[in-house]
């Protein structure tokens, strides 16, 4: 059996269609996971024990269980207790919560990396604790943690392939669907691999540009 360029050519439009959903899901999930991660990381720094414990439990639950199982719980499990989201929402929710658990750890270490002296100096100028957090600590923590988010974005894009298991028609689903019909596994999965590389490289580049834009004026 020979390599068929025709199979690649014929599969490409559908694969690109799937790639669009992969990009959308990954970008939206990343955006939500960054916001959620930041909020929860700040919560984990609060002196009160309850918010800290809640964040801890959340992080350990989502980081230490397979994403596929989480997806199945959202998709197959929740309807059984009367809560039913669309497949898209289920996929987005699972990817967001999973990625946010990792983002929390990144932001938390960022917050902890800001020298204590910054806090004390800011307080000494008469800023309130909230003002110190918002204007002094969090911006610095963000700058420290931002580069590490790139790794999480790469993982997220690859993890998004799992939502094919709940019937979401993204890149991996399309690759399965096409190769199950024309049996050109090598050509179709090979093309999907190249598309994933392009997506990952482009999106991490976008993240890099965002990072530069946001932090340029401070450096």
């Amino acid at each position: 059996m020979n390599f068929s360029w025709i199979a690649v050519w014929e599969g490409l439009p559908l694969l690109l269609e799937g790639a669009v959903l992969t990009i959308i899901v990954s970008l939206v999930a990343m955006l939500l996971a960054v916001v959620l991660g930041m909020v929860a990381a700040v919560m984990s720094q609060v002196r009160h024990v309850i918010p800290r414990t809640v964040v801890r439990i959340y992080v350990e639950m989502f980081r230490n269980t397979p994403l596929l199982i989480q997806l199945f719980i959202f998709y197959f499990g929740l309807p059984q207790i009367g809560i039913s989201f669309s497949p898209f929402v289920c996929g987005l929710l699972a990817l967001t919560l999973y990625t946010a658990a990792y983002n929390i750890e990144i932001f938390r270490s960022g917050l902890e990396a800001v020298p204590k002296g910054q806090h004390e100096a800011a307080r000494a100028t008469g800023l309130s604790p909230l003002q110190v957090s918002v204007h002094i600590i969090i911006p610095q923590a963000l700058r420290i943690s931002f580069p590490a988010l790139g790794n999480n974005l790469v993982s997220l894009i690859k993890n998004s392939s799992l939502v094919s298991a709940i019937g979401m028609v993204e890149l991996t689903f399309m690759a399965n669907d096409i190769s199950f019909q024309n049996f050109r596994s090598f050509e179709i999965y090979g093309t999907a691999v190249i598309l994933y590389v392009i997506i990952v490289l482009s999106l991490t580049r976008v993240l890099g540009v965002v990072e530069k834009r946001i932090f340029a004026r401070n450096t």
Partner: protein
Amino acid sequence: MEIRAHTTNRGILFLLAGILLASSLVTPASADTLEEVRERGELVVGVKTDFPPFGSISADGENVGFDVDLGHAFAKALFDDENAVEFVSVTSGNRIPFLQSNKIDIIMASMTITDERAEVVDFSEPYFLSGSLLLVPEDSEISGVDELNGKTVAIIQGSVQDAFVEERAPDANRVKFGKVSEAVLALKTGRADAYVHDDIVILTVAQDNPDLKPVGEPFEPLPYGIAVRQGDDEFSAWMDEQFDKMRADGSFDALWEKHFGDIKDNLIKPDSAEQG
């Protein structure tokens, strides 16, 4: 720095393109799998594990089913030892790639013979005739495939029903899953209004799940065959011989009775399968 990172990215793409191109020049050696199997002393068969009564896993973790028993019968014919056979779990989607990449010798996985598949694998003579049926929740009002427009229909990725439903109910929203168990779960949790698959699996699932019911008449009857790699003519001829022997000595009928006895009235009769 910027420029170097850029060339690295481009380098990776060229490398990948190169791999694709190089692989287009490689052709696998032609197969004589029957000879290989005889030398190895063991037959490696791709079977379903989620498709009772053709292939499933028993409570104690053993492969069981009609296809599995056929595999044992073939092993007995080959090596006079019905256990000289290894079963590998496959799905509708991945069984042909498994065969093409030499992970298994033959596919005995409730596989419908279609023109598209016959272009990439060779088939034995048909050994079963299966139509398609709908499975719906007990209280559903759906009674046939023509009523599926506008409904959400669970389908197994890579199954023949994907095209059938697209043809007969073009406005149905087809949701595709990898395994029967997932499609059934989708039906039970209200994710899908109906599940369309081979009559035999629908009837078996309905037997085990009183909250689900099969509806309609079996449509688009198609034969099952055992798939071998292209060019393995000797192997498929050998299997046809085995089928003839088993039909003559009654062991094929015994297998039929063992696995389909409970539901045979709802199936298309085996005599028609023999005509192929």
